[in-house]
């Protein structure tokens, strides 16, 4: 029904001659342009220029702040994208909903560089839909100038609930990552489907809310670098970028565990330029490009040759490439079932409407 309404609306637009149909057709015929949809602050922008110069394919690059935002934009049909870079749980959800195209790996010869341990992971077991882009864990970033050494000595997740730092703590502005932190604190799996676990986690977050300065995504960079806040949980690569900008920042993977994520490049089934999209993915996997990109974003890369070429300062950093015993404590998100998603949504809105 929704689709019918939307198509009706589109039909109305077309009748009035308001649509940009001429534009679309241009794309289809010439393969001159692809739409890439990626996380914010997650690429070396100069790489895009190189791709355009080398292939003559125009890249329309747009960003999103969370997997959920990306997903809803795509299912609403409001915009058409070719390449997206979701996290593992979102990939499995999108595969199950038949939104992703099977890749033609003959167009992506550079896939050979992807390390074995990053292939055929549970979200794409048959290596059909995705090419790993980066991976990493969630870490806790703190400012050594303001946070006492004894409070971080045990490298615990509890730092995020420490009342001493009320008003100086930043949390994710998306429910999946935020709830995961509360699940870890309670010693539960972040993929739990037991409603009681979720309600308990929500209680923890409600207790924490008065201590939280703000729920943010990309704004976290400014706030941590300018010492506006002292403590935050965020993705490792971005944490490294912040630490580069402000020497007083440090980070750790909580000893209780953390979320480990794999973000992979996928092509949408609705893509009109699949070949160009695959060219783009292949280009991103060229060793020289992958190195440059990794040096800009500071996330761990699954690209074996590029990893070898990295500056040891990066490739031996235990926050970027944590040792196995740390990774063993980490957990990867699994796509939650619909009931749990609904519960999560209700609890999250409840948290935000508790005044």
């Amino acid at each position: 029904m929704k689709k019918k309404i939307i198509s009706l609306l589109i039909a109305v637009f077309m009748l009035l001659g308001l649509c940009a149909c001429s534009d679309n057709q241009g794309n289809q015929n010439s393969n001159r342009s692809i739409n890439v949809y990626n996380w914010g602050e997650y690429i070396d922008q100069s790489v895009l220029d190189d791709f355009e110069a080398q292939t003559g394919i125009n890249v329309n690059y747009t960003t999103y702040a969370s997997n959920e935002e990306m997903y809803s934009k795509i299912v609403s049909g409001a915009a058409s994208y070719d390449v997206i870079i979701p996290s593992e749980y979102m990939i499995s959800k999108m595969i199950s909903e038949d939104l992703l195209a099977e890749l033609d790996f003959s167009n992506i010869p550079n896939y050979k560089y992807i390390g074995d341990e990053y292939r055929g992971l549970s979200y794409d077991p048959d290596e059909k839909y995705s090419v790993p882009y980066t991976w990493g864990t969630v870490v806790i970033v703190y400012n050594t100038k303001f946070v006492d050494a004894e409070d971080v000595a045990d490298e615990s997740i509890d730092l995020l609930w420490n009342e001493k730092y009320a008003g100086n703590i930043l949390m994710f502005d998306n429910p999946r990552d935020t709830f995961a932190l509360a699940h870890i604190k309670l010693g539960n799996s972040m993929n739990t489907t037991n409603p009681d676990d979720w309600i308990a986690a929500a209680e923890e977050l409600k207790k924490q809310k008065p201590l939280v300065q703000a729920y943010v995504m990309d704004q976290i960079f400014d706030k941590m670098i300018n010492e506006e806040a002292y403590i935050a949980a965020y993705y490792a690569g971005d944490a490294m970028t912040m630490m580069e900008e402000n020497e007083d920042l440090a980070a750790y993977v909580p000893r209780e565990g953390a979320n480990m994520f794999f973000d992979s490049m996928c092509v949408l089934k609705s893509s009109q330029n699949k070949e160009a999209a695959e060219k783009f993915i292949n280009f991103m996997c060229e060793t020289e490009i992958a190195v440059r990109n990794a040096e800009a974003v500071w996330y761990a890369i699954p690209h074996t040759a590029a990893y070898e070429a990295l500056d040891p300062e990066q490739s031996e950093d235990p926050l970027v490439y944590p040792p196995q015993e740390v990774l063993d404590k980490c957990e990867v998100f699994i796509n939650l079932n619909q009931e749990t998603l609904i519960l999560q949504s209700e609890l999250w809105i409840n948290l935000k409407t508790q005044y």
Partner: protein
Amino acid sequence: MSKNVTIGNKKVTVTPFASWMVVFVLVPMALVVYYAFTNADGSFTVENLKWIYTYRSTMFLSLRLAFIATVICLLLAYPIAYSMSRASEKIQRNATLIIMLPMWMNFLVRTYSWMTILENNGLINSALRTIAGMLGTDFDGFQLINNRGAIVLGMVYNFLPYMILPIYTSLTKIDNSLLEAARDLGSNGFHVFKRVILPLSVPGIISGITMVFIPSISTFIISRILGGGKDYLIGDLIEDYFLGNSGVVNYNVGAALSMVLMVLILIATFFMNRVDKDAKTSGGGRI
């Protein structure tokens, strides 16, 4: 000019506007109503409306903040508009330009820049800290951001021009001879203002209030940037249901909540129009 030609011309001139309104106002509004009264399968239901009750505290908070912002805008805008309308033509031109100038910049950029001003290490607090340091005292800084005051400030800053300009326009339209007549008939300055200027500027006040109140009550980005994303306003809630930031996309609940907003705005506009009409008739009578 014959009658027929006039009608023909009218049709021609009205068509672009009318089709614009149908496609971009009426059709979307009809879609909102449709989604509000259907469930995911597309069958009729009033289930979605129960969420309005669930989120009543969010509604009240949004109403309250929008109301405060509108009142502050009115109190700030009227004196500005009044002194502008009394000033020389050159000053009027420049003042209008200065008021419009920030609007040439993107709304988001303007709101982000307030973050830099209000933060604990922002412009205001750093300046105060420097002064305190020179005086040899210690100053922790004021909490200026991530609270409701900052949200209201964001609304006032962003929407103030929409209050000033209509009031200013209505004030400049007042015929000077009316004021002279009032004075000749023995009114003092206060009475001239109260009985002539104020009633005649009511249409400007009304459109100003509408133009500030409506974007204030439906804003979502100001609360996120300046409010720290801690307290949802009704706009945040609607965005969340449409974009599925919380993990679930639900157009139906989102539409039901949007419908409340539409109804609230329609009611407000209706009352405003009535006040407007009353003011016009009674004001005219008095003069």
